[in-house]
């Protein structure tokens, strides 16, 4: 009873809160990092160095008037942000934050497949939001989101196949253990796949340079043009939760999850003194920082260019990678 219900529920409660709180601080981090990149200070007014901005922002969003346009499809309009957010949170169920069983909710034997399928539901939220708003700019944004989805999703999924081939398992914990056994992070074994998943991850989370669906300068905010208040906040939460998901997935697949660097070299064994979850969060933070850094640096792709990139570059490379991995697997 306690083993099967109470402890998992407790874990879920802790994890949900942790994710949602870290999302609010992610927004602060993003504003701060971008500000530093642009030689300014970022939020400085609320609390010391603007730390409390992370709390002020959600309060502001909750207190704002929540407007539904007259011509919007009311049900879908409300449902869309929820569809967007829930998958982003559900995925955390299979992410192992540490080596011990305490640090993950569950380890299912098709963990990676679960992540791929659940995260692709999230984009329906964006498509529905654009459609239900019954407004022209959001409609264009939702069309872009659909085009974007089919361009990167196939490439990313195919790339993951090569990782699965290498690890011989779909379980997230299993993949990390396989890296422990082989003594190498898969980032070194599968460098091409690493880069592809990182690019695909940017597209998946609608982050710059692939933020076409919300392109403020073109579509005045894109799919969330008509949203305000808490419903807008849900989209916001979803975007940042997705960023954390992608960082976690990339960490697990390519940077050895909770493992220390070079797990096979005994001379570095003193690094094991650092708890496994700190390694995990440290690596995740690197990717989150990278996402923000990219946003501060790069211009935006045009959506036909993303489609060209997806279909003509990423997918052929992904297929080639599978073939090479397969041959290597048989030969070695």
């Amino acid at each position, binding site marked *: 009873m306690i083993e099967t219900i109470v402890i998992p529920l407790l874990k879920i409660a802790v994890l949900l809160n942790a994710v949602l709180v870290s999302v609010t601080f992610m927004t602060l981090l993003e504003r701060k990092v*971008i500000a530093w*990149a*642009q*030689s*300014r200070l970022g939020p400085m007014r609320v609390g010391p160095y603007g730390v409390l901005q992370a709390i002020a922002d959600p309060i502001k969003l909750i207190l704002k008037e929540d407007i539904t346009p007259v011509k919007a499809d009311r049900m879908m309009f409300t449902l869309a942000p929820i569809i967007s957010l829930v998958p982003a949170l559900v995925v955390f169920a299979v992410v192992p934050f540490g080596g011990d069983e305490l640090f993950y909710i569950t380890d299912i034997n098709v963990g990676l497949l679960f992540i791929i399928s659940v995260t692709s539901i999230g984009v329906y939220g964006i498509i529905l939001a654009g459609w239900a708003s019954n407004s*022209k*700019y959001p*409609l*264009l944004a939702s*069309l*872009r989101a659909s085009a974007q989805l089919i361009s990167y999703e196939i490439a990313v999924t195919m790339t993951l196949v090569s990782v699965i081939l290498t690890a011989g398992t779909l379980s997230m914990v299993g993949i990390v253990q396989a890296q422990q056994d082989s003594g190498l992070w898969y980032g070194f074994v599968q460098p091409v796949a690493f880069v592809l998943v990182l690019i695909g991850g940017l597209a998946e989370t609608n982050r*710059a*340079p692939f*933020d*076409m669906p919300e*392109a*403020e*300068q*073109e*579509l*005045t905010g894109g799919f969330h043009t008509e949203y305000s208040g808490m419903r807008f906040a849900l989209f916001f939460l979803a975007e940042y939760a997705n960023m954390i998901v992608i960082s976690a997935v990339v960490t697990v697949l390519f940077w050895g999850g909770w493992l220390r660097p070079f797990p096979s070299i005994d001379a570095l064994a003193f690094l094991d003194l650092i708890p496994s979850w700190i390694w995990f969060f440290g690596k995740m933070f690197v990717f989150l920082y990278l996402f923000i850094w990219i946003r*501060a*640096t*790069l*211009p*935006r*792709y*045009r*959506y*036909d*260019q993303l489609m060209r990139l997806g279909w003509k570059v990423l997918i052929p490379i992904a297929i080639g990678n599978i073939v090479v991995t397969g041959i290597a697997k048989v030969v070695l």
Partner: protein
Amino acid sequence: MATEASPIFDTDELVINMGPQHPSTHGVLRIVLKLDGERVIDADVVIGYIHRGIEKLSENRDWTQIILLTDRMDYVAAATNNLGYCETVEKLMEIEVPRRARYIRTVLAELQRIASHCLWLGTHAMDVGAMTVFLYAFRERELILDLFEDYCGARLTYNSMRIGGLPLDIPTGWDNKVRAFCDLMESKIPEYEELLTNNRIWLERTRGVGVISGEDAVGLGLCGPPLRGSGVYRDVRKDEPYAAYDEFEFDVPLGTNGDTYDRYLIRLEEFKQSIRIIRQGLDGMPEGPVMGKVPRLIKPKAGETYHAIESPKGELGYFIVSDGRATNPYRFRVRPPSFCNLQGLRPLIVGHLVADVVTLIGTIDVVLGEVDR
């Protein structure tokens, strides 16, 4: 470009209203886009949202009062507007401007060009999605505004020139501040280039986008960087030198492809040329008065004149008619570069995607205050 109506799938054209409230329309421009998917098949550029009747207003003002009004046309390059107007009236009245005043005017105009190009670079990059460049460019523009504040006390609408010269000599130490700024600016241009010039995404977004041939550019009456981007040599500073430009050495950068990327490169090069002109101006600054001999009552004799200068956006011309009796112009007409360049917008954007529309609004560098007047 028109799609044939399929018997099964009926495709509708989507008419979308971009602006006047839109983050990328640089003020209050409205573009009615007819879209097939995201491709623009027709566009209607609507202007007039910031019309203040400056031309008509000027016909009821003193000759000196009009300088104030010219500030408010191209409000990101007020000093060049002042310069154009003052020179036109001087030409009409045949007033000789002291050499020192002409030098200072040139320095001010070139500083203004850098400031205006900074604003253009920032917003243009922002439209394409690179937001850091925006902050970088505005950081340097701020320093120019400080220099102008030191000179005349204002930061946006300077009213910094008078008919016959300048109201003020440059303050002590100002030239050294400008020199320091030139050095700084020179070290900052590589920062912009690093973020954009060889950036793969920037290249994809700007190369081959909004191509216009030199012939078409002339036909449309484009001027300034959009014209030079297509490889047409036309710079009023060289062709019909005014102020002290005939005494300075500088190059006029020309493009070859006439696309957005070339126009970007040209403006970046103009930063460097402007710095070159400013340095020459400061080094060769003659001594003497800054105000010429001007009658107490400015009342040109009957006649008309047209005079053009090269504003940051292109050829800024003033056509003024005086009837010789009143202390205000009989007819006051401005040929604003933004207005003429805006003519080129429709041919540029038709056939491109929505994402390119904002890029192309950025690349022709319009200021709506000048378009509508």
